[in-house]
């Protein structure tokens, strides 16, 4: 079994290094095929490990080698495949394989084809380290690795200023959050003396509540950065500057879910501090509503899907915060499938429309792009949570959880957000695929994507449809590790009212979206309509002016501060000191050069001066040697000797 673990872990690394050999050469298709095959082998290994765990096998725990063994600190390179990590491994490798296959077609005409696969596989490797590590230090290594690869991939088209800016924003925001996470890890080590999950969590019930609260808060700050919770959320929407497969892999299925994974993995900790859990849940609910509101009016296709991801992450944190860890993980899994499918479909549309992103400029694409239309619609149906697709089972479960735990405010927020989710998803679908063919005004002639790309996307479609049926199998497997709370509403009447009510609300939202956007009267908004000038619209389309506030009140003062430090402190003080020392040495040399005037008389005078100096030294030392006893007494009196 260990060999499957190593294959799953290191096949992406081999793929990345292999593709890295070709970064300076023009596009070679076999690079993409090799990379996809290697990731597929990682997927097969993960699947074998999954069957092993499902059959009741013991978690596979290996310690590859020691990383640090200094003093009391012992950190190994250790990996564990247990129920939680095997779920994550399956999700990651499946979506990665499909994204790799898709990218062969999507990055067809790109000059950096080989480099792209190198970065993509490196990302998969980092993510595997993150989910398979058995201690917090390995988790952090993977954490930073995915941050780095995300920066590389968002800024893939580095000659575009806006892409590099977005990449920097993502990385810096993640770094700020990582500081919190590091403090959390330090606190764990300081209080429990180990960073291994097993031992640390076993030692935690013995700690006092305040310490645990701080640990929980700091670890969650790290999760906030990775999973883009408020206020560290602006990077996710801007990260859409990267190629679409990147958005599908990183910002839908894997990296942003790392925060959720962290909370789920630390469930034993968060069970001890339920008030922090309540804060997490409330923040998650807030973010869900917040993101959904911004997606309502946005005119950038990928941004709408990005806000949708943000919103669903909020749902996951609600579940995790309220203690329903297995529900959060289940929603993570289902969400990965249909969100990745949505992104890949959007990629098809972008390619067909020559990188046009405004859905108002598209329309009526269901005729030329039939299969993409089917996939995106079904994915949106799954996202909206209609029975019997996957979203229903996970999202409705979260609503049930919040109801059972008596958090009615959270419940109503999530319910309202579900309606908004349905609305904006189908607004997007309607604008792109239904109505008049507005793209003809812009002279664009769309065509469907390559056949192999569509075939590659189909497993996601199938899973988005049937994933709900895995619930019971999954539940039995994962609750061997996670707390096995079953959420049943006792009264059957309440249950049916809730479920049916939610479905009707969602269907109404979908119908409203279709009515508004799927008819022939939709035109490209040009800034003159009444709605566009209303206050609510302006606030939403500027993302509540938060990016503007960050730019004005944080970025600009910081830049001023940096300039001051550069010009005043570094150049004037530090540089001046170093140059000053050099200057002193130089001028000493220049000034003593006069000693070598070549004039014999001067040199003779210097000789006499030197003789006088040495004679004085001889006298002083002679006296000291003669009176050494008295000197010793004096010095010992002063306390020196």
């Amino acid at each position, binding site marked *: 079994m260990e060999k499957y673990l190593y294959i799953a872990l290191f096949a992406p690394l081999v793929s990345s290094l292999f593709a890295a050999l070709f970064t300076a050469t023009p596009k070679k298709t076999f690079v993409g095929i090799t990379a996809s095959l290697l990731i597929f082998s990682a997927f097969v290994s993960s699947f074998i490990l999954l069957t092993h765990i499902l059959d009741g096998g013991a978690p596979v725990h290996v310690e590859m080698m020691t990383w640090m063994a200094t003093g009391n600190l012992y950190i190994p390179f250790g990996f564990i495949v247990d129920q939680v990590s095997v779920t994550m491994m399956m999700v990651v490798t499946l979506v990665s394989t499909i994204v790799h296959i898709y990218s062969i077609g999507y990055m067809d005409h790109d000059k950096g084809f080989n480099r792209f696969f190198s970065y993509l596989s490196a990302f998969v490797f980092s993510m595997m380290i993150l989910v398979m590590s058995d201690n917090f230090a390995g988790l952090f290594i993977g954490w930073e690795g995915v941050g780095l690869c995300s920066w590389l991939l968002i800024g893939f088209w580095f000659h575009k200023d806006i892409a590099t800016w977005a990449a920097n924003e993502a990385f810096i925001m993640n770094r700020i959050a990582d500081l919190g996470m590091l403090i959390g890890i330090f606190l764990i080590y300081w209080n429990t003396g180990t960073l291994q999950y097993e031992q640390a969590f076993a030692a935690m019930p013995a700690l006092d509540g305040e310490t645990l609260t701080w640990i929980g808060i700091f670890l969650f700050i790290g999760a906030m950065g990775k999973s883009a919770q408020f206020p560290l959320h602006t990077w996710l929407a801007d990260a859409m500057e990267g190629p679409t497969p990147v958005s599908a892999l990183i910002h839908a299925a894997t990296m942003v879910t790392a925060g959720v994974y962290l909370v789920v993995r630390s469930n034993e900790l968060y069970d001890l501090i339920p008030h922090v859990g309540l804060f997490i849940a409330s923040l998650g609910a807030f973010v869900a509503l917040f993101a959904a509101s911004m997606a309502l009016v946005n005119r950038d296709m990928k941004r709408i899907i990005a806000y949708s991801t943000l919103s669903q992450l909020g749902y996951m944190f609600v579940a995790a915060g309220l203690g329903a860890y297995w529900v959060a993980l289940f929603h993570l899994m289902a969400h990965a499938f249909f969100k990745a499918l949505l992104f890949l479909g959007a990629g098809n549309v972008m390619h067909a429309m020559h990188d046009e992103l405004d859905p108002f400029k598209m329309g009526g694409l269901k005729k030329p792009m039939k299969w993409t239309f089917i996939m995106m619609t079904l994915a949106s149906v799954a996202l909206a949570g209609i029975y019997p697709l996957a979203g229903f089972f996970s999202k409705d479960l979260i609503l049930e959880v919040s109801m059972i735990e008596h958090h009615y405010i959270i419940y109503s927020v999530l319910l309202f957000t579900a309606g908004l989710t349905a609305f904006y998803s189908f607004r997007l679908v309607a604008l792109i695929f239904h109505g008049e063919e507005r793209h003809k005004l812009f002279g664009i002639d769309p065509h469907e994507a390559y056949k192999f790309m569509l075939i590659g996307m189909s497993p996601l479609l199938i899973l988005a449809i049937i994933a709900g049926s895995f619930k019971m199998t999954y539940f039995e497997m994962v609750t061997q590790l996670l707390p096995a709370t079953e959420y049943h509403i006792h009264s059957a009447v309440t249950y049916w009212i809730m479920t049916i009510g939610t479905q009707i609300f969602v269907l109404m939202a979908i119908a409203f979206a279709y009515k508004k956007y799927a008819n022939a009267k939709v035109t490209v908004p040009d800034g003159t309509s009444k709605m566009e000038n209303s206050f609510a619209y302006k606030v939403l389309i500027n993302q509540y002016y938060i990016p503007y506030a960050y730019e004005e009140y944080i970025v600009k003062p910081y830049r001023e501060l940096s300039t001051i430090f550069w010009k005043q402190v570094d150049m004037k003080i530090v540089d001046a000191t170093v140059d000053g020392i050099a200057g002193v040495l130089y001028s000493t040399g220049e000034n003593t050069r006069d000693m070598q005037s070549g004039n014999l008389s001067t040199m003779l*005078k210097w000789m006499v001066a030197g003789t*006088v100096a040495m*004679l*004085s030294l*001889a*006298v002083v030392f*002679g006296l000291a040697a003669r009176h050494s006893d008295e000197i010793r007494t004096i010095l010992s009196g002063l306390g020196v000797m």
Partner: protein
Amino acid sequence: MFEAIAFYLFAFLTTLMFFITVTTSQALYALTALAAGMIFISAFFFILGADFLGAIQIVVYSGAVMALYAFGMMFFDTTREVKEKHGNKYIVAGMSIIAAVLVVVIFAAPMLSDNITAFYPMTEGVGNTQDVGMVLFTKYLVPFEVAAIMLLVAMISGIVLAGKKMDLSLTLYSTAEIKDMKKDQDKKVLS
């Protein structure tokens, strides 16, 4: 008693003479004062019972060295006044005085501890010259011979440096050949 009078008299004279040597602007006066000073120093040697040394001092210094300096002076035409640009005289005087004081202090210190034993003690009964001869030709024979060679070298260097027609070897070429070589050199210069 006599010793004290002699010492102070000659000390005064010597200091005076040497002072004149270093301060006068007339080269001839300096030379004369130096010669006088040498003689007075030999007086000290006689007071100290170093007869041989005193005689050597008169013969070598006042005789040979001073004669050499006198010939040199004739060569350089320093009978006229020497014009000199002097530096800061306070530094000069100050440093010398400090050096003197320090040396005295250094020498005074070991004298206070009086446990120095003689290496080559003077033998009683023989005269100083005999005594010096005995030590010089037995214990100090090698330095004596080396000094002889050194004097030979000095003599030869004096001849070579200062003599005319000294750039060509008289043993390798005959006088006629030297004349021809000189003529060729002149021809080159003129043409």
